[in-house]
């Protein structure tokens, strides 16, 4: 009996000791698009200059799943990060030269097995600045969905405000959406993860899930005194405020006096300041805005 037991335990331990083998990886391929429209090499560029980078990536053994764009100004930050599952990836990225003397832009492609490949270039700041003029709006009012005049949507193309039904019929023009929700007064956009409850009642047919075009605007909180905000006359502070790291899809818990920087679908930058905010679902937000032309 004991002999049988010992043989059994030996047999069982053999079963339990099996291990996996690790696969061998070849890294995927990545290169810059080569055309005058794109930047591909080390350059000296004016602060504020908007540049276009074109990326082409292809799989080696397995599909590519992630592109990571980072910028190193002495501190490494992630400017862009998205994922997919494909054998070929092509992407145009807009970047703006920061106020750092030197910054290194790193483009990394990673495949599903973790193999990765990177390319990069360095941008140095020139002595010239490339600031653009801005538009100023002293009074933009957006209202909650239960307000008698529920114009909750804003277009950054013509700066018109829209109701939900009107916005649904002008999807390509809609950039900003204001609502009162679980995080109180919130600024978002059709491309944000907006709570479905916001569209209950008579309006569920116009839920963002059913939109064909969902523009995304991203936000970052920015602390600036009112006087400085009022004195802005070009986009230099707008560029500094937004920085290189991608913003969030929502500006939440808005209160009077707060300032947010934002970037729309075309990387056009702006700042808004909350002048007055009131109520809940039938409330409103009253703000100033400065935005690149």
């Amino acid at each position, binding site marked *: 009996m004991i002999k049988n*037991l010992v043989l059994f335990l030996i047999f*069982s331990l053999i*079963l339990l000791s099996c291990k996996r083998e690790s696969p061998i990886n070849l890294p995927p391929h990545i290169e810059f698009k080569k055309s005058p429209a794109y930047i591909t090499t080390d350059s000296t560029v004016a602060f504020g200059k908007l540049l276009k980078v074109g990326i082409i990536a292809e799989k080696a053994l397995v599909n590519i*799943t992630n592109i990571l764009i980072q910028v190193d100004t002495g501190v490494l930050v992630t400017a862009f990060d998205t*994922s997919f599952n494909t054998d070929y990836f092509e992407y145009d990225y807009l970047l703006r030269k920061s106020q750092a003397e030197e910054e290194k832009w790193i483009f990394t492609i990673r495949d599903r097995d*973790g193999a990765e490949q990177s390319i990069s270039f360095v941008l140095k700041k020139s002595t010239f600045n490339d600031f653009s003029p801005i538009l100023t709006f002293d009074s933009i009012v957006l209202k909650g969905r239960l307000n008698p005049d529920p114009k909750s949507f804003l277009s950054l193309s013509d700066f018109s405000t829209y109701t939900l039904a009107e916005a649904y019929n002008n999807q390509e023009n809609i950039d900003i959406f204001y609502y009162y929700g679980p995080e109180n007064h919130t600024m978002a956009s059709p491309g944000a*993860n907006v709570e479905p409850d916001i569209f209950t009642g008579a309006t569920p047919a116009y839920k963002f899930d059913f939109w064909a075009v969902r523009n995304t605007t991203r936000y970052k909180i920015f602390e600036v005194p009112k006087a400085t905000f009022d004195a802005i006359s070009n986009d230099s502070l707008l560029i500094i405020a937004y920085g290189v790291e991608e913003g969030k*899809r929502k500006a939440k818990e808005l209160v009077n006096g707060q300032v947010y920087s934002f970037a729309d679908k075309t990387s056009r930058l702006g700042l808004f300041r909350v002048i007055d905010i009131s109520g809940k679902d039938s409330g409103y937000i009253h703000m100033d805005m400065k935005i690149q032309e």
Partner: protein
Amino acid sequence: MKKWLFSLILLLATSFTYAQNNLIGQVVNAETGEALQHAHIYIKELNRGLLSNDTGFFFLKEIESNKLSVYISYVGFTEFNQQIDLSIGNTYSFPLSPSAFTSSTYVVTATRNKQEVSMIPARVDVIDEERIKSQSASNTDNYLQSVSGIYVNRSGGIFSRNASVSLRGLSSSARTLILLDGVPLNHASGGTINWHMIPVQDIRKIEIIKGPASAIYGMNAMGGVINILTNSPESGLGAEAEFGFGNFNTSAHRITVSNLHEFNKKNLYWSFNVSNKKGDGYFVTPDNLLDWYDAPLSIRETKASIKVGSKLSPSSHIENNFFYYDDIRFSGNEFYEPRGSFEKFNTLQNSLNYSSLFGKTQIDVVAFAHQENYYRLNENINNTELYKLSETFHKKDDIGLFLKVNRRFFKNHIVTSGIDLKEGLYDGKVIYRTTTDILNYQGNMLFAGIYAQDEFSLWKNKLSFNLGLRFDHVVFSDGAFGVENPTGETGFIDNESEKYSTKNWQSFSPKVGFRYKFWKSNSFYASVSKGFMPPKTDDLVRSGKISKGFKIANSELQAETLTNYEAGFSLNPSKKINIKTSFYKSFGKNFLYLLQTGDSIDMGDDTYRQIYKRRNIAEVEISGFEIDLNYTFSKALNFQANYTFSQPIISAYKDDEQQTNSSLVGKYLAETPFQQVFSSICWNNKIVNTSVSYNLIGKQFADDLNEFELQRYYLIDLRFSRNFGNHISTNLDIQNILNQKYLDRKGNQSIGRFVLLSIQYKI
């Protein structure tokens, strides 16, 4: 005068001498003539009980009476109760006939010894061979749907990822001990089991013991014990092939080869079984919500088992069982990966059972090793249309040794004691393929239990008692959790590496019960018992995404306990009717429950998930009632019905800061139906054996705040079976014949009607 006095004295002396009878008896099997060892013998006139020896004999000397009332009982046989006259002879053979209800009437699970159901002070249900043949089942847990007090959650039928089986209001399979031929299947790390790996065609019998059985089984046996017993070869060389075809392009095949060789009162047997099952599945997303990425659930399963055993002597037996299971189950979505998200289980289990009688002492040894490798590929697109791809690897290794000794003392006491040792290793990793996040987690659980039990009966077995006590010691060690290169996908900001301190828990689990046969086979039972379950390794070490949010580990969890009070009746108003009822009230302390913390976490890009944490709820109360009716119209026609009521309520709750939180008090535990009904009728005839069953699952809540109520639903199943000669048999199973569809707690649509035709050929 002196002469007649002397004659009188001589006559009296002679009479007295003549009245000093001896009795030589032998208890035998009326059908085979085999001696029956250790049969209970009771002589009413002498008020004396004794046991037959190893050759069935018993001896009584110097008996004054000539006429004796002899009562003999033996497990598996009808009782013998007759008068004998020693003036005719003093050597008797007492033949006992095998009982017509051998299979159902005796269980091995309730007390870890073979015991008659009518003697056990607990609620015991048995799914015997007849019920197994007549009931439609494509997985083992399908059989359990017919048992009162059991809730089986398997909305996707054979295409479900797994089944959840819970007993008496105790949600989670981890609170029910599942045994396969006495070997525990519950993983030490989490308590759950993979129901698919159990070879459903190999099942001979299922024994269910309801109510805490921790007094002899320890952890996992809080709600009860389910022991699945498999077939062993009963004759010489044989083979069986089975082919099955069903809707959703389902096919199932099986081959079994076996042999039994008998020699010199010993035997050697083996069986080999291999089967596979595959099906293209169905869409779990309701039809009106189907999107481009929805794909049907589909499965591929392969199982193999080898059983080798031997009856080494009339009183010793050894058996080795080896199981292999491998499957792939697709999860119902397909974005960019070929075939989409899927899960894979690869399981190996080996167990050795040895039992032997040494004199009056029975020794049983069970040794087992179980390895499960789990892999999951998961892809999805979140609310902001961002694609996610991740791989999960789990390894669970369990090894154990159970030693049990039992012996008879003082005529009618069976004393059982034993030691159980078990260790479970848990090692997991999640690699996110669309970011750089990697999670690692591991832990080790060691269980040691020692127990003792005394079963005894009085008044000719009219009153039986069971007293048990077990001490368990559980040690959690080598717990660790780490995050590498986080990006926010996992909710972590920086690299993390945490090692958890060793923890241990102890518990004493007593049980006291009695059963009283107040009239013939009608009886009443009552018992008080305590159950114990330590925390799971997964809850102690792993943080990360779960289906409903984000779970954080809690290394401060305490073991939960349950005290159960129950009573019930078993009534036989006639030979055709059997009614069983049970009432129970359970009080749980430190119940482990997954609760929202009230916070949410930004999973990156404004995708927020509710944070959950497994916590100890202060107190839970469960009230329940079960009633079963079995009516045997004739040998060919049988009706069965049962009703279950169960109400588990959170009666007290304190959060981590020991603040009393009233918002959960009075809430019902989630995923536990309040009421269930089952009924079936089976008709065996020469044309086609037919059975119809009805199963109603009542209202239940999907969440801990009781804000989401799941719809109640009913299912009607049919089975038709027929034999063609001695070699061919067929079964046609139609599950959910009315094609009832319902949404489960995850919002997935149930399978609807499932049809399977199978043909078996046996030689």
